[in-house]
């Protein structure tokens, strides 16, 4: 899966995606998925007013914040010794990246 995602990244034409597509920023990054239209099964006629359903990803973008929100699994992998060693080449003490 790692290799697949990196090859799809290679093929991205960023300028076209950013400047001449209608995709939202999230879609540009993750690739366009068919928007899962939530089943509007529940007909709650009890209430006269109803709140409009907001697509899931819009809720995620709710907070205008600058700090990168790390997901737990992204950080979890840094518990592994192998992972810690993999970036040694990025430090001055490390030999050429291998």
């Amino acid at each position, binding site marked *: 899966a790692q290799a697949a995602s990196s090859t799809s990244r290679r093929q991205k034409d960023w300028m076209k995606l950013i*400047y001449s597509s209608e995709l939202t920023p999230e879609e540009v990054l993750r690739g366009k998925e068919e928007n899962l239209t939530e089943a509007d099964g529940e007909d709650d006629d009890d209430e006269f007013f109803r709140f409009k359903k907001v697509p899931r990803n819009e809720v995620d973008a709710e907070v*205008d914040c600058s700090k*990168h929100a790390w997901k737990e699994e992204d950080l979890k992998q840094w518990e592994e010794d192998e992972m810690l060693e993999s970036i040694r080449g990025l*430090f001055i003490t490390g030999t050429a990246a291998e």
Partner: protein
Amino acid sequence: MAQAGLVQYSGHQHLRLRLVLSLLSGKAVRIDKIRSEDKNPGLRDFEISLLRLLEKITNGTIIEISVTGTAVLLKPGIISGGPLTHDCPLSRSIGYFLEPLVALAPFAKKPFQLTLRGITTDEHDLSVDLFRTVTLPHLQLFGISDGLELRIKKRGAPPAGGGEVQFLCPIVKQVKTLNFVEPGKIKRIRGVAHAVRVNPQFSNRMIEASRSVLNRYIPDIYLYSDVYKGEESGKSPGYALSLLAESTTSALHCSEAISQPGVAPEDIALQATRALLAEIDQGGCVDRQHQTLVLLMMVLGSEDVGRCRMGEPTPRTIQFLRDVRSFFGTSFKIVAAEPMDKECSHLLYSCYGVGYVNSNRTLA
């Protein structure tokens, strides 16, 4: 106002950067449908507070908010700067307000001497520690340096805050063109651990835990335990660890983690440390949190080609690139930094600067 100089948007997202672009470009901006479908429609208190702050730091700015609060029109005036004080609401930290100001302050009429009160560190925005150690050095890349300072007078942890910082920023006529394509290798790691209204030993425990991971890489690690006592430590208890890694070419990567109820200081430190490693792994000359600031300054740079190597754009950055084109007509050239290397996700961003001249300064 000519209708041609008006840029329109819908939705509350990306509000801060759009207001900044409006003030710098001189084009009015109208944003409607602000949470119009929400249970609680309209602008939030921190957004209103931000608009008030922008009104304070400028002269002649007209801000019109609709009765329901779901639409706002901003006609920019000149950025005046000077000595000012602003109380930030407790719903967002000082970082939320500082971020747009950092981009505006160099282009003011008078140097900024701004005092902000509120929460100094929270989970959404960069803490004042990172502003001081990472964001401000990014401005130095563009020739904004003499007298650039952020003083942390008092700390204020959420929820009650009580912190105070003073932001001093010099004014410039023009910003330099950036040419930053060598990420270099990490040569040193610095950090600030602070603990207020809790056992001061907590910051030492965080430092120790962080060192246990970082010591394997390089010897040049200095994590500072910043102690604030009494009045200076704000109204709520809390602690945090902010880390930064600097490369041989002065590329900066940063991370931080703040206290959560029921989590040991060691675990907070490990969160921050792992986030730093992930950020280093991401690489590039500029980290994700500072993409928009650097790209903005590149657009404003002198009429020459500015270049910078960074990782993939964040969603914020993508929207920002689109917004920049609406306000300044500038688009970036974005290509793979190393087309031969399939593993490398770095991109090279380049643009032709608009040659922005600080006209507020000459007006006096």
